């Protein structure tokens, strides 16, 4: 092999063939992280001792002839709302800084570890997961590797940056209203928000129980599908996790768009998209041979309902702490949390009922189509500290509006893959590839087709490789 392995696929092959040891792979990843992280502030904690000891165990097992693991010798990192044994689960919040460390790994980490993954560290996020820009007053903003003066998106900004900078091939994040998809779009990497209830949330800090999803980010579709397949499976300890069998996606990726009926979303998804975003949506639709354009009825209302549910549930969750320790709260979100705790029950109930009704109408669309396409963010990465974004002739506050295009989709838990495209300015813009419930395989096949055509790719700089 001429190049040192970087992607998960390359690491597994190089390790299994004996060409490179897990310890060498771990060391290389840690070196890249230590070199790049000061400028990015993606990692909050680098778990070097654990990475190396996991690697040593793998190397010893390989010598003994142990059977091959699906994610062997693959470095990965996780948003710091995941429980990691021996580390305090911060969720980007100063509020939690003095909590005792987690006793055991969260469920998804357990699976990644069991599959041979090497945990490199924990990643920065918007406090509590309440944000779309990872501008964290206490732990610092995360910088976009594509342009350090810009936001990496949020709330899984550390995850997006770590993967886009080529520090680890796989990162794990969470997505309530867009927190995997927004960083994927702004940083130019692939991301997957699975169906609501697909991946167990056991051992991760909640934000909005009605809307929280967990999922992977990666530099290739093959890696994304691999990480997702490894994490699949129900868990009786998470009541929101559906009792579904593992439905592996890797083997079907090569089918591409064969047999898929595809449409591009217009209406709300064009009205709230700048020129670059609409371009990405149009060109992806052409390459994927989308037959039609359709509108989702009630998308604006869906976004409003998701906003209300988010405010109300998170406000209630933090109410006790707000009463006693308000000075420790993130200034960007403290009043949003308080206001959320004041929402009348009748508004919240109405939003929940709207959810079921809106879902039924969107499912009707899926009788005619298997995949829908929309941009992932209204604009490309804003500057850190930028107060407004411009969409057409409208100026909107940046932070709450980066999720305009993602919220109406996660509201009803549909599976979405994000594939990064590259605009004329040099900044990335992701497209959402949206499938019916439980059809992550379709999202991933479409992402793979875009990647294969050359239109979509994560452009990891060769310095990382």
């Amino acid at each position, binding site marked *: 092999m001429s190049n040192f392995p970087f992607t998960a696929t390359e690491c597994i092959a190089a390790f299994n063939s004996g060409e490179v040891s897990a310890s060498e792979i771990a060391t290389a990843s840690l070196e890249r992280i230590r070199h790049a992280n000061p400028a990015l502030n993606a990692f909050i904690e680098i778990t070097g001792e654990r990475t190396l000891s996991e690697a040593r165990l793998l190397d010893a097992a390989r010598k003994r002839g142990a059977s091959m693991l699906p994610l062997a010798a693959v470095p990965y990192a996780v948003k710091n709302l995941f429980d990691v044994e021996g580390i305090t689960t911060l969720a980007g919040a100063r509020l939690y800084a003095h909590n005792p460390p987690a006793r055991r790994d969260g469920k998804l980490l357990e699976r990644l570890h069991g599959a041979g993954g090497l945990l490199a560290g924990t990643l920065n996020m918007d406090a509590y997961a309440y944000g779309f820009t990872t501008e964290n007053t206490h732990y610092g903003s995360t910088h976009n590797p594509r342009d350090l003066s810009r936001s990496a998106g949020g709330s899984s900004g550390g995850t997006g940056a770590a993967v886009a900078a080529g520090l680890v091939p796989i990162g794990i994040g969470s997505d309530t209203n867009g927190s995997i998809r927004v960083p994927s779009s702004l940083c130019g990497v692939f991301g997957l928000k699975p169906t609501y209830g697909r991946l167990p949330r056991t051992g991760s800090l909640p934000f909005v129980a009605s809307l929280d999803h967990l999922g992977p980010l990666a530099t290739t579709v093959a890696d994304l599908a691999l990480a997702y397949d490894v994490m699949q499976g129900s868990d009786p300890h998470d009541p929101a996790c559906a009792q579904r069998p593992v439905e592996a996606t890797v083997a079907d990726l090569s089918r591409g768009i064969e047999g898929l009926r595809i449409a591009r979303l217009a209406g709300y998804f064009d009205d709230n998209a700048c020129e670059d975003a609409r371009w990405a949506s149009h060109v992806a639709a052409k390459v994927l041979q989308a037959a039609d354009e359709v509108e989702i009825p009630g998308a604006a209302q869906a976004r409003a309902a998701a906003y209300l549910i988010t405010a109300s549930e998170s406000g209630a969750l933090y109410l006790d702490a707000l009463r006693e320790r308000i000075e420790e709260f993130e200034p960007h979100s403290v009043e949003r949390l308080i206001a959320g705790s004041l929402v009348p029950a009748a508004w919240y109930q*109405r939003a929940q009922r709207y959810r079921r009704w809106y879902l039924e109408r969107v499912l009707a669309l899926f009788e005619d189509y298997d995949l829908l396409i929309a941009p992932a963010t209204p604009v490309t990465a804003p500057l850190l500290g930028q107060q407004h974004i411009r969409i057409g002739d409208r100026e909107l506050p940046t932070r709450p509006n980066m999720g305009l295009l993602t919220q109406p989709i996660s509201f009803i838990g549909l599976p979405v893959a994000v594939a990064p495209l590259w605009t004329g300015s040099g900044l990335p813009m992701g497209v959402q590839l949206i499938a019916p419930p439980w059809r992550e395989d379709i999202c991933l096949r479409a992402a793979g087709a875009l990647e294969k055509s050359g239109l979509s790719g994560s452009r990891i700089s060769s310095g990382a490789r």
Partner: protein
Amino acid sequence: MEKNMTDKDRNLEITQYVDATLALHGLELNEARRAETEKQFLLLASMSRIIATEPIPDEIEPAGIFRL
């Protein structure tokens, strides 16, 4: 809120509601925080108005149903 309220009436109602519910929750805020909270609540009120007139059928389920 009634449709024949003026904006001024509505804002007064909101200020009174925010003050009352903050007190109910035992949250004591300085003036800057109180003002920002009210601003955020006004935004939530506008979100609620966006879905207020949707003709959602009565039999639509209100939320996740408790199951054993």
